């Protein structure tokens, strides 16, 4: 009798199933994956070490590059931590602008992840639709801060610039454009038999497994747990705004499968649109920034801040010795914890489902590696 043999197959680091270089080494028996081991670090840039050599304010552009699809959130979490340490209070107007920018960024990020998930399954046109709408968000950001991708917009003590002329009208226009367009995505993907068939009951993550692994964001919400930092530990002005936290309900089969995660993202876009509208309606007049001293030094001590990024809980710990530069900066990035799910979820699945599962997890290599 022939000896049973398995094959070790490398998916990545140059592979399109993740944004950025990312490798999963899977052991297969025929078409079935037996074990999977993530291998990361292909984009490790030592951002936390760089922080120790930068000034407090000079580190801000680097936070953009931690998660470049959600730059605003990375800026924001760092700014919140430094503000909490040095007892600076950002003006009310800045808080609202932060919410608007953050939610716009969430829309852009979710559009990208919905598009790329469909792209991995072979639905090329969905990505083009997503890129088309993402360009509209990019246009808004260009009006707001001049950048398309790495915004560096939120600063310690406020935002870098006030909302520029025409932004508010254009933002209202965009919301009115986007919400009906979501039906297009639903027609193209969510109600598409083939798409549902590829996602239903694939990569089922139970809520308890997700919590134990430290997974947050659309993955844990897709599993039915209503955990959102914006609700549980509100920051900025989220406690004044009304929004729902969509959770997976097992519409296509089991709760916590890839389809639930996809639907959570679609519904979050809707919620973000409503949040932007509310924030634009309530936008108070006033200052958008507090003036910092020319050489900014955070007082001695430690601080911690968390925000809800499009991929989950994004936190930062900062420690200061009262000098010009931080003593230690440590980011907790949501995609990093997802690696813990791999051995359990990528087990006894066909190879063709691996890209589906990776796509539905929406892993950012830059965030894992930092």
């Amino acid at each position: 009798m022939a000896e049973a043999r398995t094959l070790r197959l490398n998916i990545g680091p140059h592979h399109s199933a993740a944004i950025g270089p990312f490798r999963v080494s899977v052991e297969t028996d025929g078409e079935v994956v037996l074990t999977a081991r993530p291998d990361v670090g292909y984009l490790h840039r030592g951002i936390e070490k760089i922080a120790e050599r930068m000034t407090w304010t000079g580190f801000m552009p680097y936070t953009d590059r931690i998660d470049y699809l959600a730059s605003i959130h990375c800026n924001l979490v760092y700014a919140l931590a430094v503000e909490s340490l040095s007892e600076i209070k950002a003006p009310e107007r800045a808080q609202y602008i932060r919410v608007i920018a953050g939610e716009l960024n969430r829309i852009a990020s979710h559009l990208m992840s919905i598009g790329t998930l469909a792209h991995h399954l072979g639905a090329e046109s969905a990505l083009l639709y997503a890129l088309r709408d993402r360009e509209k968000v990019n246009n808004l950001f260009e009006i707001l801060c001049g950048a398309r991708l790495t915004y560096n917009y939120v600063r310690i003590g406020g935002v870098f610039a006030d909302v520029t002329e025409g932004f508010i009208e254009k933002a209202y226009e965009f919301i009115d454009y986007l919400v009906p367009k979501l039906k297009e995505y639903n027609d193209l993907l969510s109600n598409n038999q083939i798409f549902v068939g590829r996602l239903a009951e694939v990569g089922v993550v139970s809520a308890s497994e997700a919590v134990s692994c430290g997974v947050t964001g659309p993955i844990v919400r897709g599993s039915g747990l209503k955990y959102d930092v914006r609700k549980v530990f509100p920051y900025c002005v989220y406690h004044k705004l009304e929004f729902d936290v969509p959770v997976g309900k097992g519409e296509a089969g089991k709760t916590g499968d890839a389809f639930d995660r996809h639907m959570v993202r679609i519904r979050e876009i809707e919620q973000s649109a409503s949040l932007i509208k509310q924030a634009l309606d309530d936008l108070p007049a006033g200052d958008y920034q507090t003036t910092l001293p020319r050489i900014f030094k955070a007082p001695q001590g430690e601080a911690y801040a968390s925000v809800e990024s499009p991929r989950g809980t994004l936190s930062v710990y900062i420690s200061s010795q009262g000098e010009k530069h931080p003593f230690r900066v440590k980011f907790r990035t949501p995609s990093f914890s997802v690696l813990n799910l791999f051995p359990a979820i990528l087990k006894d699945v066909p190879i063709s489902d691996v890209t589906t599962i990776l796509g539905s997890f929406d892993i950012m290599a830059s965030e894992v590696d930092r």
Partner: protein
Amino acid sequence: METREFFEALEKNFGKAIHPIEDQNGGKFISIGVERDSLKKVLEFCAADSSLRFDFLENMIGIDAGQELQIIYRLVSLSLVHTLNLKVSVDRHSPKMPSAHETWKAAIYYELEIAEMLGISFQGHPEPRKLLLPEDWQGFPLRKDYTFPEEYHSIEHRRAPLRKEHTRP
């Protein structure tokens, strides 16, 4: 619940293994110090006790504090909505820590990262390996005395400046 109540609950069960609360900066980030030897039991208690119920390990932070290395465990209870920071110090020259992966699976990758960045070895870790850096990388980057490599696999790390005035001191 507040950190002070957690402290009382922990002190009642573990006595001297719990250090008094460090509050340097007016309640912004309060951590409770724990002796390394009883850390494993403390963490298990935090996860299991019905009034604490910390089901979620949000973060593990490794710090090089000069004389010693420190690890902060950031615990969150999703069901009871409260947070707790536990701080453990470990000797710089023979840094060994118990692994927390049996309590929270999330610890597996946090520990891998801390191990390669600060050189702390976690006992009982299921799969010790380098995570972010190549297998043959020398040194622990997040230690304060780390020096940057001159070259890696015959690729020079330094790049000659285009003009003289571009050099930095």
